């Protein structure tokens, strides 16, 4: 399955090659032109019968991961985060490192060697190290400073509906776009897979400069908020409650007409939808919206629990509903009162 393969691929910011290659292979027969720009964005173009509107659909290829920063004499590695990762989820995880995907673990002293004071505390991230089982730096082959290290997670089905994996943010968006490209549209459509979103929406800046679009719809994997809590306070988005629409986040206020159009279509077609909590996170839309003379932007996302960690949970039902809604929106973009 597409999502499974995409989730298992490794592609941190600046290291999206594997993902780009896979996507190129999957979509080449559905598009008229494919190109990789200098920063690494994969730009695909699908002609339409009409000249306008020019529409962009975008998802980012990169995921959060780590980078080797130094090799110590004892054969362990210091490393840095690439993108936002909670320090606490890093401890004791298996990582795969470099081109050869060499396995290592983020080491923690066993409880026997901890003191009363240290056993319930979390060391500082700068004290963390990766251990590949070496005893000296002379044992290290095939790992260099600058190599990326990824959570060694494999995609898995928990049950018929719930899947586990890494990098659903935003391989789920990449997967949606591949599914979308199988359809035909009557206007020019750019499908864009961006780079370096996780470290500051950087690929999207170049896309904005390059493509003069009328509309852009950004497809995302977004963090679910439905954690156990007792008080009557916001928990959305929920797993299984459908595609998540953005009203406002840290990077933009969604175009109201486009958002209202999407809501109208969802209601008409009986597709469930929910809102992301305002003022949290940001997406490529924030850059594309203010590119050139301005672009009408919206974000449609699949919620996933525990994003930016080694294990996220996502619902296939949400995926299907998000695909259905996005396709409906794209098919009705010039009708449905959006314009």
């Amino acid at each position, binding site marked *: 399955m597409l999502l499974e393969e995409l989730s298992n691929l490794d592609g941190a910011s600046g290291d999206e090659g594997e993902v780009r290659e896979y996507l190129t292979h999957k979509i080449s027969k559905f598009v008229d032109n494919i190109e990789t720009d200098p920063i690494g964005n994969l730009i695909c173009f699908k002609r339409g019968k009409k000249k306008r509107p020019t529409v962009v659909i975008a998802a980012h290829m990169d995921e959060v991961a780590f980078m080797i920063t130094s090799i110590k004499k004892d054969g362990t590695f210091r490393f840095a985060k690439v993108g936002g990762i909670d320090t606490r989820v890093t401890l004791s995880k298996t990582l795969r490192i470099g081109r050869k995907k060499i396995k290592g673990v983020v080491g923690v002293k066993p409880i026997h060697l901890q003191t009363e004071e240290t056993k319930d505390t979390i060391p500082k991230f700068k004290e963390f190290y990766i251990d590949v089982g070496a005893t000296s730096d002379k044992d290290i082959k095939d790992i260099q400073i600058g190599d990326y290290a990824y959570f060694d997670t494999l995609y898995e089905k928990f049950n018929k509906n719930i899947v586990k994996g890494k990098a659903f943010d935003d391989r789920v968006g990449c997967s949606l776009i591949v599914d979308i490209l199988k359809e035909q549209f009557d206007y020019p459509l750019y499908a864009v897979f961006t780079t370096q979103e996780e470290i500051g929406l950087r690929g999207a800046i170049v896309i904005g400069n390059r493509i003069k679009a009328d509309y852009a719809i950004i497809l995302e994997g977004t963090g679910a908020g439905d954690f156990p809590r007792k008080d009557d*306070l916001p928990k959305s988005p929920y797993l299984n409650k459908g595609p998540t629409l953005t009203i406002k986040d840290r990077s933009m206020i969604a175009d109201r007409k486009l958002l209202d159009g999407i809501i109208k279509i969802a209601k008409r077609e009986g597709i469930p939808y929910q809102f992301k909590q305002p003022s949290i996170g940001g997406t490529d839309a924030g850059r594309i919206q203010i590119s050139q003379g301005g672009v009408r932007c919206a974000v449609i996302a699949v919620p996933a629990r525990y994003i930016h960690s080694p294990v996220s949970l996502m619902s296939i039902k949400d995926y299907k509903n998000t695909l259905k809604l996005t396709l409906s929106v794209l098919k009705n973009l010039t009708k449905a009162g959006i314009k």
Partner: protein
Amino acid sequence: MKKLIKKLTETFGPSGYENQIRNIIKKEIRGYVDSLKVDRLGNLIAHIKSKGKKVMLAAHMDEIGIVTSYIDKNGFIRFSNVGGFFPIHSLTARIMFENGRVGVIGEEQRNSMKDPLEISKMYIDIGARNKKEAEKIIPVGTFGCYERKFEDLGKRIIAKSLDDRIGCTVLIEVAKLVRKKVAADTYFVFTVQEEIGLKGAKTSAFGINPDIALSIDVTGTGDTPKARKMAIKLGNGAAIKIKDRGMISNPSVVNSLIKTAKKNNIPYQLEVLEMGTTDATAIQLTMEGVPSGAVSIPSRYIHSSSEMVDIDDVNAAIRLISKFLKTSL
């Protein structure tokens, strides 16, 4: 002019939802410019054609506000800030929504009055008796802003959203004053979404690609009890910006503003603002760069529901910009 300020400041218009403000300005300025258009992000662009250099004047239509995020079972509405909406100014303030509904901001019981105020512990009470009733009137995702009456104190006025409806007023009055007789090819741009990151300025400047740009916005003052040191006083004239947190004004733009002020006996003061910035910051970096500056209106209590400016400063800014447009640059 006070009538116009009253109308502009009492109207609803947080970032992204500037429609009502745009309509008022359209009506006011239509007879005094050659053309009017609205760009894709919602910026209102009024143009007076001339053979001179392209000058872009920008004032933002949007104000700070809130967006509703969640309704609990009793109908209390949680919210998030839109721009620099400060908790310290907002407790028990009234919030209005586009549909005319008004609510009051309440707060969870605090353990100690010394605890910090946090938006996450506040809510809006629109007088709904339960979730169902609240949802019908103000669904999640509704934008709101302060509700507050304009007060005329003679020389000085108090109102919400003088940041930056006073800038909008200045531009409208400049258009009225110059009667299409300008040396510069003049674009009056009323921008959107300034408060959340200078968004409208960025796209409108891209469309116009001006030779020179000025933003017209409010600036802080240092003239209140134990205020942060700042050489700006209410009533001492239009403020010519030298530097703020986001931009260093182009020296030749600054010099020609100073020269214009001196020549025409317009009171002015020089502004160095340590906090905050304006649309000019985004405009300055358009394409290959735009020499930019700003004329500011000194204002007390910025980003509260009761901002204060002095009408003499407003008039000085109007005269300064009008004369600036009439000099060949």
